[in-house]
């Protein structure tokens, strides 16, 4: 499959939506080609037999080792103001949210 057809325009649109990216037409077509090229290099993996590669959870931790439920410090409000110029009246202001958006 030619690399440019690896990603259909519909698929790319969906990915750009998931990625919350809005690209210029030029950037979009370049990305489509490059992403196609990158993805085509992944095909080699399909030839590797992984039928016997069950996920390994040897690094799992014991339930008893988890963080104790003790309250720690939170950030002070002035720190929030330093983070964002849109911290208004104690809230982070965003454009009006329309349900389902």
């Amino acid at each position, binding site marked *: 499959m030619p690399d440019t057809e690896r990603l259909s325009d519909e698929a790319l649109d969906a990915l750009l939506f*998931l990625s919350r990216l809005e690209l210029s037409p030029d950037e979009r077509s370049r990305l489509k080609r490059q992403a196609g090229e990158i993805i085509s290099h992944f095909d080699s993996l399909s030839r*590797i037999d992984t039928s016997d*590669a069950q996920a390994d959870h040897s690094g799992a931790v014991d339930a008893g080792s988890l963080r104790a439920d003790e309250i720690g410090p939170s950030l002070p409000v002035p720190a929030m103001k330093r983070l964002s110029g849109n911290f208004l009246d104690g809230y982070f202001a965003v454009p009006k949210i329309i349900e389902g958006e």
Partner: protein
Amino acid sequence: MMDATKLPVVEILSLIDDGKLSSEELVKAYRAALEGDRASAKPLNAYVEFFDDAGDLARAADARRKAGERLPLLGVPFAVKDNISIAGRALTCASDILEGYTSPYSATVIERLVAAGAIPVGRTNMDEFAMGSSCEYSRYGATRNPFDRDRTPGGSSGGSAVAVAAGMAAFSLGSETGGSVRLPASFCGLYGLKPSYGRLSRYGLVAFGSSLDQIGICARTAGDAALILSVAAGRDDHDETSADAPVPGARLEALPRGLAGLRVAVPGEFSGIGTDPEVASAFERVISLFEKAGAAVERISFPLLKSCIALYYIIAPAEASSNLARFDGIRYGARVDGGKGLFSLYSVTRDRGFGPEVKRRIVVGNFVLSSGYVDAYYKKALAVRTLLVRELTGLFGRFDLLLSPTSPTPAFRIGEKVDDPVAMYLSDLCTTFANLAGVPALSIPAGATKSGLPIGVQIAGKLFSEPLLLGTAAALRGEGL
């Protein structure tokens, strides 16, 4: 006064101990080197910020020493990649999207080094969000290689490597996801350590590929790297993936140093891949050094190593697509509100805020995780990764070390690969396996090309075998490397 800017940490400490050098003088000398370079025709562009108050911090360290305080790194200035948080300092990851962000907290590794007396003197340039192998994808422009200013220093921790190589810091911290410390270290003639996954806390390191990321160390000697590692290592309650694996008082003398009897594997998969002849001959020289010292070097075949690039460029972008979702313009950093509602705030902020390589990886990452593709790509990659870990564990049962060039070529030209992502990705050919398997790896300076470009070789070992890697590097030096 002597030129102290190129001295290793261990020597700096003994000069300071003897009263022959002060921390303040050293910081002044680093700053002078930086300012001299800034005035040159092709500045290296290693630092994105050298802290105005670095001298004050150094003076304070000198005063503490005078007052009798003794700490392992008291007064040692170091440079920090701009993706590691320092409380009260800007943090940008070389990205426009973090414009104006100041971290309210410090990374655990920073806290430990500072508690040991070390002084962070500045933030270093990098590929945006550590995505790149050349230190060109940066809002601050490319960093140049001090050995040839038309070449890249390697990436993504290029600024950290150059800061040390050019005498502007005693050591530096970088970050590793697929080779981002080892590659620039090899291009700049330094030791570059990628510790075992979990050896150092990731708390405060801006996440790229969380299952692969580790803070790494650029140092002038293996002994320096050992000292810094011993100060920074160990379990951190802020990072559940950190291991309870401290490196006790790693003075170099305590490291295992005999090359005799070491079993060294040289995988064929990392040769014959367009390896530069000068790199190949430098590599052969290292092999013969091992053999002369009594190590058993065996050429082996490890086919899975060939799949590591594909594996890496599935897993790292998948995790990155999720890790970078927090950069949305809502709570901090840049916000571009076109007045067209929420979706537009997100997409315009992210479109303007991220560079092309970051966007590529976010899109590819979302692709390999999206329904319909997740099985063929992401889950397949996880399964292959499981095989890799298993086979590598087996290999390290039979061998102490895996030896390869760090990169098939020395430093490449600025602009050479910048528009060819796949070619850029192949720079990581020899390095990604260590991140995928979580094992430690060290790039060791191994001479230079005729034109003076440094060459690096890499040794990797089993999980938590850093003392062996560092001791071996020191022993190789003793053998004339």
